């Protein structure tokens, strides 16, 4: 069985007015099916990319996989353990949480502006009781900062003292602090400049190699995943329309929607 398995994953949002307003205006409930019976599997140590435009449900899936949002139907299992298993004790829940972390889209909103970088990075260690003692935590923070290409003196700074790319590195270091096995990357470079984007993508890749991480990569940009993903799933309005190995998807897309996405991506190509 694959490391991460999503089975018939669905999520419906209730956009209805409050009950009393509905009765007064005699309008029916308004339900939005953001994700509709999506299936995918991710092998350990590989990268699976979910690609879609706005409203495709890709971020909803990301939030369900990390457990921030409960699925309306279907299930997610990580290493055989069902994420939505209500019989889990708090300890078991924490153990499972530790293994799944996330890197967010916005380099500005994803770090608490009032916290020093050192505190941001040591919080997961305390929450998961990974490392005891201030000295040991400081050492680990320094190690994490170094792993993402920052220096240990950065631990005493506040997030606003860093550029967008550096903040994204801090965000990655925070995810690593939990010693996770799966990292969900939700558009981690869409707010970054091209040259910095390349730095962050390369960093993610080398960390994957070093720690055997499994990535679920959420993006709207096919070009970004061409270098990152082993397998790509294309989402359109909550439905997984196509799934192929990266190379095959780019050379022989099957669905019209995928072809449209590929052809409308801006190309720097003067031969044709």
């Amino acid at each position: 069985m694959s490391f991460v398995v999503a089975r018939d994953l669905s999520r419906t949002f209730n956009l209805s007015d409050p009950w009393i307003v509905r009765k007064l205006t005699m309008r029916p409930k308004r339900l939005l099916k953001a994700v509709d019976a999506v299936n995918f599997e991710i092998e350990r140590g590989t990268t699976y990319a979910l690609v879609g435009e706005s409203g495709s449900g890709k971020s909803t899936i990301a939030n369900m996989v990390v457990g921030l949002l409960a699925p309306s139907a279907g299930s997610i299992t990580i290493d055989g353990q069902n994420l939505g298993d209500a019989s889990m004790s708090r300890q078991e829940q924490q153990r499972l949480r530790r293994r799944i972390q996330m890197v967010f889209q916005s380099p500005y909103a994803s770090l608490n502006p009032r916290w020093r970088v050192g505190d941001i990075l040591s919080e997961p260690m305390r929450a998961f009781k990974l490392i005891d003692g201030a000295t040991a935590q400081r050492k680990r923070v320094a190690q994490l900062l170094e792993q993402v290409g920052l220096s240990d003196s950065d631990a005493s700074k506040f997030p606003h003292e860093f550029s967008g790319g550096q903040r994204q590195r801090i965000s990655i270091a925070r995810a690593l602090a939990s010693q996770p096995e799966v990292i969900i990357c939700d558009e981690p470079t869409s707010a970054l400049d091209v040259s910095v984007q390349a730095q962050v993508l390369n960093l993610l890749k080398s960390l994957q190699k070093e720690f055997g991480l499994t990535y679920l990569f959420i993006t709207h940009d096919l070009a970004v995943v061409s270098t990152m993903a082993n397998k790509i799933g294309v989402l359109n309005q909550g439905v997984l329309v196509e799934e192929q190995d990266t190379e095959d998807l780019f050379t022989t897309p099957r669905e019209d929607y995928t072809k449209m996405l590929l052809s409308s991506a801006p190309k720097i190509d003067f031969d044709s």
Partner: protein
Amino acid sequence: MRRFLNSDFFYAFTRSPLAIVSLLVVVLMVLSAILANFIAPTNPFDAASLNLMNGFTAPMEPNMFTGETFLLGTDDQGRDLFSAILFGLRVSLFVGVMAVGLAMVLGVLLGLIAGYLGGWLDTLIMRLADIQMTFPSILIAMLIFGVARGLLPAELREEMAITVLILSIGLSEWVTFARTVRGSTMVEKEKEYVSAARLIGLNPWQIMLRHILPNVLGPVLVIATITLALAIIAEATLSFLGVGAPRTEPSLGTLIRVGQDFLFSGEWWILLFPALTLLALALSVNLFGDWLRDTLNPRLR
């Protein structure tokens, strides 16, 4: 400290004469209230030191019987008005600061809960706030004051008067804090750093207090300053109406109430000086609060 001196905030402060002057007045008043024991020439509430012969001495004029001179004159019982004002300032400021503190703690907590947890708790808290907003806060304070007095045994009333005053003003001013904090909490909780905190399994209280609270405190500081001016005036109003600080522990409002009895008999100073002090205090706190608001958060305007 060096970070503060280098900040844009401090720079803006040094460039604003209004802010400097108003803060200076506030600091001066707070210091003289705290040090009243040492500054005041007499203890105005030590009945033994009062000399009825000194009654109604005009400012800077020697008393016709005793020949003593008082900077701001005396009241009907020969009490030195300057000393009375210093001690009155102390009561007014104490009540104001404590009441704002109470309103702030209550409002911030309720605002955090309403904004972060949402649902029926949010509805309950905010409807309560709506109801309270439909009454003038001075009425609420009087209501609470009246109920508390009714519940207290007679012998405790005098003793508890200040506490009751603080409670009644504090409970009538929490709404502004709660509304503002709820609003900023609802913005903050959508940010990804809160998601990150949820991902490591923190409970709602840890997220509210450790993560969200520091990020919603900016506007709270501004509101606290502006509310302080309101609370000082509310205290003075209550005391003026005779339902506030007792005569044994008079605040500026009590002094004004006492003073107005003598206004038309020509002893104008007994009213004027406490009133001017109250005006200067409330005005400078308010001006400083306005400046804080404009500097820290122009959107609150």
